């Protein structure tokens, strides 16, 4: 059985429906990348998984449990973490406090996870007492990742992690994603930079108009001339 299973998901904001039947499944330990044109419902899919909008049809199963429409607060307890695209740090809290907040749902000792996060993001250790809002864009992204890792998630949802970053940072971010994945975390990621993202993906999902148009392994999608023509810009 897959770790994440989405079947015929329909969802939207208020009465406006955006997702019209999205299917997706990820095995434990995989990287899944969602690509597609603007307005295809990529970010909306992540938000729907994370209980942030009205689900009108279909089902989401995670690790054997039905989590359809479960509230965001609860999902952290199921060890699903979400890194939004914007405003993804507590700007007035220090880096350290941001990480502590990430572990809010944990009642056990999480000092080893904290050490681990500082280990993979060394700059954060240096700036642990600075307000997160004063960091550079790339470092803020690290804080956001680190915060999400604090619950030792089984699944991490990333909404366009490279948006607004320079190309240099972009490859760094992808390296981090691979590193995080190597520790056994399943990743579901929405990306604009489809080529680079699909290159590291086990599975790719091409969405258009709120529906899957292609689902295959990342490599196959990259090699698929039709996908390349219509979605990857030649």
């Amino acid at each position, binding site marked *: 059985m897959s770790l994440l299973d989405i079947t015929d998901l329909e969802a939207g904001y208020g009465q406006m429906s955006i997702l019209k039947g999205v299917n997706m499944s990820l095995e434990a330990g995989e990287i899944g990348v969602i690509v597609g044109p603007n307005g295809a419902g990529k970010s909306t899919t992540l938000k729907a998984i*994370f209980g942030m909008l009205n689900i009108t049809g279909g089902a989401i199963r995670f690790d054997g449990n039905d989590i359809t429409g479960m509230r*965001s*607060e*609860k*999902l*952290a*307890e199921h060890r699903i973490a*979400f890194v*939004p695209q914007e*405003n*993804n*740090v*507590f*700007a*007035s*809290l220090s880096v350290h*406090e941001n990480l*502590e*907040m*990430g572990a*809010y*749902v944990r009642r056990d000792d999480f000092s080893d996870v904290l050490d681990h996060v500082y280990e993979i993001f060394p700059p954060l250790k240096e700036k642990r007492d600075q307000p997160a809002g004063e960091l550079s864009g790339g470092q803020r992204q690290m804080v956001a990742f680190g*915060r999400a890792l604090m*619950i030792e998630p089984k699944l991490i949802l990333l909404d366009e992690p490279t948006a607004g970053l320079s190309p240099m940072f972009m490859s760094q971010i992808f390296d981090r994603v691979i590193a995080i994945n190597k520790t056994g975390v399943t990743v579901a990621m929405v990306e604009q930079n489809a080529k680079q993202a699909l290159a590291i993906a086990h599975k790719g999902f091409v969405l258009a108009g709120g529906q899957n148009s292609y689902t295959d392994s990342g490599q196959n999608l990259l090699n698929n001339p039709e996908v390349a023509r219509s979605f990857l810009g030649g």
Partner: protein
Amino acid sequence: MNEFVFFLNKGLTSGLIIGSIYALGAIGVTLIFGILRFAHFAHGDMMTLGAFVTLILTAVLAAMGIVLPLPLAFVAMFPAMIITAVLAIGLDRVFYKPLRQAGAKPVILVMASVGVTLMLQGLIRLFAGVRSRNMFVEAPKEIFQIPFPGASRKLVITEPQVLLILFTIIAVIALHWFLTRSRLGKAMRAVSDNPDLAKITGINTNHVVWATWIIGGSLACAAGTLLSMDVTLKPDLSFNILLPIFAATIVGGIGQPYGAIAGGFLVGFCESLAVFNWAILLRPFKDDLWFEIPRNMALVPTEYKLMVPFLILIIVLIYRPTGIFKGRVL
């Protein structure tokens, strides 16, 4: 020197006293503003309510014949703070929470709080009447007169004033400790900073809301009680105290507890210094001055004291609406 002591008594002490009251009130308002996102118009009446709870407990203690080294009202204030905090959570559950859950706009909550303030006002006056009351049920308040070197006039400070200043200092330190060291306190700052992310992170919003009302309600009770101990308990405090407290909140930056404290003292000092008659300080030098000292040199006549917080509010809103401590950008 006498003139200087007079200035300390009338200008500085009264600024410190009223500033502490405003600060205690504004902490609650700014936390509610930051976390629940609306201006809580019922805060003034919550102060009155807290003072009345204290008064009732004090009367009970006095009737039991208990004698303590501290004023009974001050001792009764602590259980009263707990009661007021519980009442505040109750008010939230009945009047604000349903609106919040229905996704009402903040302005609807502001309106609901206006409704709540009228209800509290009506109930308090219905049961307690409209006359002012003395919080010192058992014995008159103590007044300390401290001799000041080189002056025949003495420095005057009353027992409730000392208690108020001590309480404010301890409350501020405790609040600082709570907000920076405890898990719940940090969660409060997180919710105030970025409510959406707080939800994603799994922070339990209910706990944060409770903590907000507990702090806001208990400090409102303390402020109401200590103010009533310093002067008398007046049931018509409500809107008159609301304006300086809102001014302090906005000056300090919304959602910024330290800003609220600073704002409270700023407004308090401005008020007492604006109505202070500066001519008195100049009188000793009257022979050396080239002009005749007018009888009254107060910047603002006492009857227009309310203008001071309003003007501060207006100036801040025009030139720096995020407050001097950079509150949330609205």
